[in-house]
């Protein structure tokens, strides 16, 4: 079975269970705050990349505003925690809901647009979100950011070191990936893929494509918000700079390098591109060069990414030639 088809199931426990066990004992072996903090960041990016994969990978929508929803989640959690004193366990789902609501608000008017137009609208939303967070000082404290966000508490004990955060994000990743894998292997996931492959044919099969695209967008933005809430309670400080367009591109790069349209791809991409820059610190100023070369290498030699669905990059309308299956209308005959 190719890697891009892998979905964790009861039958293939021998693949994912040892991996999970290794991840559980990993921090007991390394005992390094630095390495654990990298692992925690990888865990956050796994959620961000996997959720972006729902729209960009499975449904074939071009969203370029993922960091905005990540930021909305982070700010929602930060504001609720510092002003209302809500705990992490409440801010986490609420951040997802607020980000998902913003996702729906963007999706409803814009998902009638396709390809490059949707990309432009989401980039615009990204910039607007940044400017609003920077200037709405009454709500976001603007350039000062929001400090002193309380850490999550488990059984009344606040997390202090990265060990606790590591297990928390590991649990969160397992839950998120479990939910996403159930979604993409269902009738709903098939509807996403059918829309990606041919929207007209999907409609003819009875799929209400507009509604399904909105759903895809809301799912992706909900989980971006969840990642944002974790980030806020982990960094314990949020500011608008963390959620700019370059952050969106970082997530998108992870998705492309890891591979779109599969469950494994985004996980590999997130881990690789979080760990790689850290692991190559000894290269000093050549670090960026090596990073760039790896990206170019992947695009040239493995355009579907490490574990993406083969052909998923070429056959997409706006990035490539308009092929026969992406024309809007049928010829008159």
């Amino acid at each position, binding site marked *: 079975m190719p890697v891009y088809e892998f979905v964790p199931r009861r039958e293939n426990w021998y693949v994912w269970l040892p991996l999970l066990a290794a991840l559980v004992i990993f921090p007991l072996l390394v005992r390094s705050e630095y390495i654990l903090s990298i692992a925690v960041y990888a865990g956050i990016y796994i959620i961000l990349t996997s959720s972006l994969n729902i729209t960009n990978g499975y449904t074939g929508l071009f969203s370029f505003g993922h960091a905005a929803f990540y930021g909305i989640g982070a700010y929602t959690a930060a504001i609720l925690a510092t002003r209302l004193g809500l705990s992490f366990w409440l801010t986490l789902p609420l951040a997802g809901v607020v980000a998902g609501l913003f996702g729906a608000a963007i999706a409803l008017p814009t998902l009638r647009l396709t390809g490059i137009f949707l990309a432009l609208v989401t980039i615009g939303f990204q910039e607007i979100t940044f400017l609003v967070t920077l200037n709405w000082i009454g709500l976001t404290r603007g350039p000062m950011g929001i400090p002193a966000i309380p850490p999550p508490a488990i059984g009344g004990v606040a997390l202090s070191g990265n060990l606790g955060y590591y297990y928390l994000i590991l649990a969160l990743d397992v839950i998120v990936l479990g939910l996403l894998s*159930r979604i993409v292997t269902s009738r709903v996931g098939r509807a996403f893929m059918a829309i990606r*492959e041919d929207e007209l044919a999907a409609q*003819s*099969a009875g799929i209400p494509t507009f509604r399904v695209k909105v759903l895809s967008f809301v799912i992706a933005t909900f989980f971006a918000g969840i990642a944002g809430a974790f980030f806020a309670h982990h960094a314990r400080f949020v500011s608008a700079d963390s959620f700019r367009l370059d952050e969106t591109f970082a997530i998108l790069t992870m998705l492309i390098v890891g591979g779109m349209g599969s469950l494994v791809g985004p996980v590999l991409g997130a881990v690789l591109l979080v760990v790689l820059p850290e692991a190559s610190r000894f290269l000093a100023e050549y670090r960026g060069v090596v990073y760039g070369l790896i990206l170019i290498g992947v695009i040239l030699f493995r355009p579907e990414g490490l574990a993406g669905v083969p052909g998923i990059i070429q056959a997409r309308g706006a990035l490539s030639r308009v092929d026969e299956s992406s024309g809007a209308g049928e010829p008159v005959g």
Partner: protein
Amino acid sequence: MSLLEIQSVSVSFGGLMALKRVSFALEEGEIVGLIGPNGAGKTTLFNCLSAFQPVSEGHLRYSGVALETLSPHQVAALGVARTFQTSRIFRRMTVLEHLLVGRHLHQRTDLWAAIARPAWVAREEAEARECGLRTLALFEDRLLPRLHDFAETLSYANRRRLEIARALASEPRLLLLDEPTAGMNPHESAGIVQLIKKIRHLGISILLIEHDMKVIMGVSDRIVVLDHGEKIAEGLPEEIRRNEEVLRAYMGRRYGRA
């Protein structure tokens, strides 16, 4: 009441009239062939019937329901399935997944059921799979051995078959086939004729666009001829074969007079 009634339907693209007051009906269980030279408006009519193309004037009634105000997925939900002239397959989905998408309308797993996975979801999937396999059996050994292959790896003829299979999986009452044998060799076309006869035995009515006269004469109960957006003839296959107007439209004026 007819299953499908096309009542004085006109479509204009700017100044160009793609269809001019076309009327005909299709009875339950019937196979009606739709022929005409290139540009006659056959596919435009299909696009109107599947709600991809709004009609400028006239009415489309499918078992009494007005189709012209619906969207494509609502038309599909009424039991009208179609195939496309240039096949529109899901290239990076497997043969089986095409059939499961074809079952979309008969399933009810939504986001919450997908996440919670109550027992009926597994039953529903097994049922869809079984129905998909039954549908594929109509195509003998063409598609069944390729169940888990991506559609883009299929041969041209198999892609066309897969599109028909996807449409059939939705158990339509009316099937719109747009040139199912286009680009096929005579042997493959003969297979499509057999297939169409099998589909009729399932009780499905068919509206068929086709250029291959052997196919159209072989399976149609009645034939409707369009030329330049107008209906120029309607009748039994043998009547159409002898119709002067039809010969003129196809072969040119001189042939028609001779």
